[in-house]
């Protein structure tokens, strides 16, 4: 038995456990758990009564909650629920309710209790061992009533919460709808505002268009697809003699212009709509008032927002005044061009006419200088010759300039050997360079193509112009030509040429002006150095014609670097090798104090796949040679500081292993050296600087013993005048020459010159005579004038080559046609070389040597 106090404690704790939560399940769990614990029951279950909707009477009972959850497996529980009516008979159910509480002992010490729980149904408690005190069962009634109320409160709370939840959902949905409405409203306001803005913008656009249309003096018009006016501007209305612009609406050109004009414009405007293309045309138009005007008419298709053509619109500008100006300008231009052409023809004729007597003056002066003169007479005659030559240069420059200005100069496009063209330039200038004691080098980079297509004469002219300046303004040091590839494509090459000197240089502020016509850097230099100032201008224009640039870098007192680029087409054999197999793989030792020359020689030799070892001075070279036995040849400069070329050769010969080493000595033309002294040292060959590649290879081949009958190879093109004269004299009667020339003075000059070297000469007055002579005699060389009566030089040459089949005989053109491109025309006609008139003694003899005495057979 428990005490009353314990009784109260137990009920108190059960009471406290009821209604601790508003969640029905949680509340039932806490309450039932406490009931079970405090009453020491082994299980418990709460059943719920279901009431009929109409009568509110209990219609059935069903399980609501139990602890433990698996109570159904408990046999005692199964016994207890057998008391519960399963039917829906309300009377039986009512009787059952009245029976509560049910307290039943079952199977010895097992008990179950079914107790009424108001508002829910009933509670089943299972207990073992001892029976529950009846008083406590009765005491439970108010607590279970409280449990029922609490449960009802939970259900109501749950319903309230559900209602609240639904309410919240409705409110949320309302809020959402309100927000959507608000958004829509704001959107409408925004759209309205935007529409107003758009309307304002449209009105403003309309205003701008009206202002534009009413202000512009040109005709502006819009037409529909029937080409009736939709709108025109005031200016157009006025020209159409209409009172206002609206009068034109729905009218077409047929209503306003004559039928011919209307039909013409109708077709054009239909075409604009069909092609959707904007068209602009200058038209002659006759307005309804009868006035004839020129207009510049622009018409375009008028498209709607979807891009459909809905008509055309156009603007017509009155250009009558401009047309009048153009007419007058064209007339003036035609007159000017006619005048310019006359001037060019005049200049060309003048050139020829001036050159012919000048040829006589210079030629005769040369002959005069060959006669016995006293010093005063020689001086006067020499002055005449130099003045004549200066005048000739001047005429050449002026002629070129005139032709360029007149647009009559065009570039040739012929195949040529770039290296030969550039190296040959040295022949033209080497005397002047040597006279000034300057070093001169030509460095063509190995990657520069050999055969290209372009205008070699003009290229040479540019380089000679620049070189001429360099020589003119340089008193000491060196002058170099460098050529390299700037850009290369499969079909074209852009070359970059640099002509450098160590001369007086050009002040920075004058660098930009020197390529302008008639300008030299300093007007004082004109007086000091002479010249027309046209050379650089001509060069610039030629370079531009070759799609290149020309510029200069210079520093006063240090020298100048003239650069130019030029574009050429590549020949199919642009890189055809000129490799000489006989000297391939030779080990060559080079000694030269000049670094530029060393590099030039090295490039040339490496191109021929030689092995190269280089030294700056003789001592190092000798040291090397003493310790080497695989050297095939030595190339040494003659003029070197310290140990010169002679000492080097001498030193080499003192080395027993190199007593027979082939040696090539590089000499400069103006410098003296003892030929005999060199010959005494055995197996020594000389080459004049600047070294040409082919000459180098030829000399090396001879020196290496590949051509045993020769003792010495000498430069063919760099021979001295004296050497040439000796050579030609040695030929004597073995070389028979035909001179074809109509001018008697020139005949006499040529005859006098050739007789001087003992060459027999026949003379023909024109081409026909020349062919006749050819048929009768055998000649070794023909000197051919170009411009002759009856048959000119070109025709004669072609006849000799084709008709007579004489393809080998050298034909040298002699022409006063000093226009550039003449040489190429001569070569194209089948001639071999070209001498400009007036005839230069030096040039004539050297050309004769070149063609009559090939290098391989020259022997001294």
């Amino acid at each position, binding site marked *: 038995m*428990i005490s009353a*106090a*314990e009784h109260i*404690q*137990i009920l*108190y*704790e059960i009471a*406290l456990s009821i209604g601790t939560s508003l969640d029905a399940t949680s509340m039932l*769990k806490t309450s039932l*758990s406490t009931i*079970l*614990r*405090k*009453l*020491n*029951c*082994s*299980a418990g279950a709460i059943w719920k009564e279901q009431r009929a909707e109409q009568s509110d009477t209990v219609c059935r009972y069903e399980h609501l909650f139990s*602890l*433990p*959850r*698996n*109570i159904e*497996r*408990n046999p005692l529980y199964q016994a207890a629920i057998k008391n519960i009516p399963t039917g829906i008979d309300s009377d039986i159910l009512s009787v059952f309710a009245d029976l509560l509480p049910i307290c039943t002992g079952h199977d010895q*010490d097992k008990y179950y209790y079914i107790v009424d729980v108001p508002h829910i149904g009933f509670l089943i408690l299972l*207990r*073992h*061992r*001892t029976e*529950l*005190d009846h008083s*406590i069962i009765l005491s439970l009634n108010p607590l279970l009533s409280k449990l029922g109320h609490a449960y009802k409160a939970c259900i109501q709370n749950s319903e309230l919460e559900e209602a609240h939840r639904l309410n919240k959902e409705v409110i949320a949905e309302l809020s959402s709808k309100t927000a959507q409405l608000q958004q829509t409203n704001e959107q409408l306001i925004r759209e309205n505002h935007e529409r107003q803005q758009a309307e304002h913008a449209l009105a403003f656009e309309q205003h701008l268009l009206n202002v534009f249309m009413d202000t512009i003096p040109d005709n502006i018009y819009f037409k529909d697809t029937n080409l009736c006016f939709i709108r025109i501007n005031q200016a157009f209305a006025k020209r159409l003699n209409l009172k206002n612009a609206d009068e034109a609406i729905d009218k077409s050109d047929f209503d306003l212009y004559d039928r011919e004009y209307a039909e013409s414009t109708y077709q054009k405007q239909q075409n604009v709509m069909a092609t959707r293309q904007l068209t602009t045309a200058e038209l002659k138009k006759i307005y309804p008032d009868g006035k004839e005007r020129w207009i510049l008419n622009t018409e375009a298709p008028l498209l709607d927002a979807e891009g459909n053509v809905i008509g055309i619109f156009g603007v017509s500008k009155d250009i009558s005044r401009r047309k009048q100006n153009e007419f007058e300008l064209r007339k003036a231009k035609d007159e000017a061009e006619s005048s310019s052409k006359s001037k060019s023809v005049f200049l060309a004729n003048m050139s020829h006419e001036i050159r012919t007597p000048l040829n006589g003056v210079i030629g005769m002066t040369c002959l005069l200088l060959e006669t016995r003169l006293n010093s005063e007479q020689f001086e006067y005659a020499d002055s005449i010759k130099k003045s004549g030559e200066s005048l000739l240069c001047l005429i050449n420059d002026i002629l070129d300039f005139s032709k360029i200005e007149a647009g009559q100069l065009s570039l040739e496009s012929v195949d040529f050997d770039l290296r030969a063209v550039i190296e040959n330039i040295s022949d033209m200038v080497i005397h002047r360079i040597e006279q000034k004691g300057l070093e001169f080098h030509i460095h063509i980079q190995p990657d520069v193509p050999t055969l290209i297509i372009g205008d070699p004469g003009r290229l040479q002219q540019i380089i000679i112009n620049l070189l001429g300046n360099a020589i003119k303004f340089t008193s000491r040091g060196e002058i170099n030509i460098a050529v390299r590839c700037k850009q290369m494509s499969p079909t074209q090459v852009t070359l970059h040429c640099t002509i450098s000197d160590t001369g007086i240089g050009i002040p920075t502020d004058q660098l930009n002006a020197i390529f302008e016509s008639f300008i030299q850097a300093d007007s004082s230099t004109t007086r000091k150095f002479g010249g027309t100032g046209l050379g650089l201008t001509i060069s610039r224009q030629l370079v531009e014609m070759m799609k290149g640039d020309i510029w200069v870098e210079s520093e006063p007192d240090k020298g100048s670097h003239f650069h130019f680029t030029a574009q050429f087409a590549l020949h199919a054999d642009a890189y055809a090798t000129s490799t000489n197999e006989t000297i391939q793989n030779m080990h060559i030792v080079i000694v030269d104090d000049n670094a530029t020359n060393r590099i030039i020689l090295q490039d040339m030799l490496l191109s021929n796949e030689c092995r190269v070892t280089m030294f700056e001075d003789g001592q190092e070279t000798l040291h090397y040679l003493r310790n080497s036995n695989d050297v095939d040849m030595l190339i040494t400069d003659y003029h070197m500081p310290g140990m010169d070329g002679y000492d080097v050769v001498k030193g080499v010969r003192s080395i027993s292993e190199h007593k027979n080493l082939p040696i090539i000595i590089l000499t400069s033309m103006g410098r003296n050296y003892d030929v005999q002294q060199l010959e005494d040292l055995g197996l020594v060959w000389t080459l004049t600087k600047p070294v040409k590649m082919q000459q180098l290879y030829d000399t090396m081949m001879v020196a290496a013993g590949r051509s045993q009958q020769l003792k010495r190879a000498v430069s063919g093109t760099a021979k001295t005048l004296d050497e040439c004269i000796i050579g030609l004299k040695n030929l004597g009667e073995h070389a028979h020459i035909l001179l074809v020339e109509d001018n008697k003075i020139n005949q006499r000059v040529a005859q006098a010159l050739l007789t001087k070297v003992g060459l027999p000469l026949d003379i023909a007055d024109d081409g026909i005579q020349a062919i006749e002579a050819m048929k009768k005699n055998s000649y070794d060389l023909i000197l051919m004038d170009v411009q002759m009566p009856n048959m000119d030089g070109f025709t004669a040459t072609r006849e000799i080559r084709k008709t007579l089949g004489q393809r080998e005989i050298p034909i040298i053109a002699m022409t006063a046609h000093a226009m550039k491109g003449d040489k190429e025309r001569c070569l194209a006609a089948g001639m071999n070389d070209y001498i400009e008139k007036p005839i230069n003694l030096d040039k004539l003899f050297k050309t004769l040597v070149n063609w009559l005495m090939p290098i391989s057979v020259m022997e001294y």
Partner: protein
Amino acid sequence: MKLNTGKTGSVTEFEKLIFDVVHTAHVQSLFIFSCDSNGFQANEIDPILRTIPVPVFGGIFPAIMCGNEKTDKGTVVIGLEFAPHVTIIPSLSNPSMDYDQIIEELLPEQSDTRTMIILVDGLAKRISKLIEGMFNNCGLEYNYIGGGAGSLNFTQKPCLFTNQGMLADCALIVQCPIISSIGVQHGWRTVSGPYKVTDSDQNIIKTINWLPAFDVYKDVIAAHSNLEIRPDNFFDISKCYPFGISRFGAEKIVRDPIMTSENGFIVCVGEVPTESYVDILTSDAPALINAARNAYTSALQEINSYPFNTFTLFIDCISRSLFLEKQFQAELDAVYHESTPLIGALTIGEIANTGKEYLEFYNKTAVVGVLEDA
């Protein structure tokens, strides 16, 4: 059943005992009792436990029993000839855990389960909630027996043996297919009360009758025994004066006060709900020993009708042993019969149910289980 005992308390001995039992024929699982004074460290024991090829469960207790002998050092390893399912319930102090739901999710349906052995970390704070969850899910369909492992210095540390290693703050629910009969009795009686617990937090009584719990408790003890209980001698005296929570028609649920805090709170083994009424209890040696004997007798009554061998599993509260001191042997003798092997532990809280009462977590109670020796 294969029983192996060692008294050195060494790790080597522990390993050897396990090895021997595991390799005994028919052994399918291990039930291990070890003493706290063995000083086992998880890093030493875990590798051994993890290599055991059969299910293992057990714990470290203040003292263990084998036969009619209690020991403070050593290990008892029992090889069982069945393979129970062991479920680990973690976080046994976490106030946000719903053990009712966790048990529903983790505990498998084992149709052959007859007895549940429940071992808990005795110093975890929500053991009663776990037991309530067990009752709600499983009811009294099975017999329950078990107790709290841990150390008498009341410091929580790994104290349960599992195949994962030693664990703390968790419970092991071992579903066994063996028949059992359980007897439960404590023998404590009211000396004062009831007192209303006006504020508590899990197993901590903060106020009694709106006064600091320690002050009320101290006055009652002083009035009863003239002893002055202080924080430094708290458990020496409190072991004689536990709290009791009333229930109808059964012994009170005892709550063992084990320490007091600076702010006058009293820490118990097991929860004491707020608004519950507690009495202050006391007892004497004969009453306690008699209670143990009654528990044993009660258990025997149930199982004697079965025709198989049995063994006795004695789960007795450590504080009873401390209270009884030398007379504890009499309590042990009261539940021991030479014909029946006895194994057991002195625990921090006891779990038991005979299948006839609401499932509870007890303190200071003698639980005697007579189990089928399968």
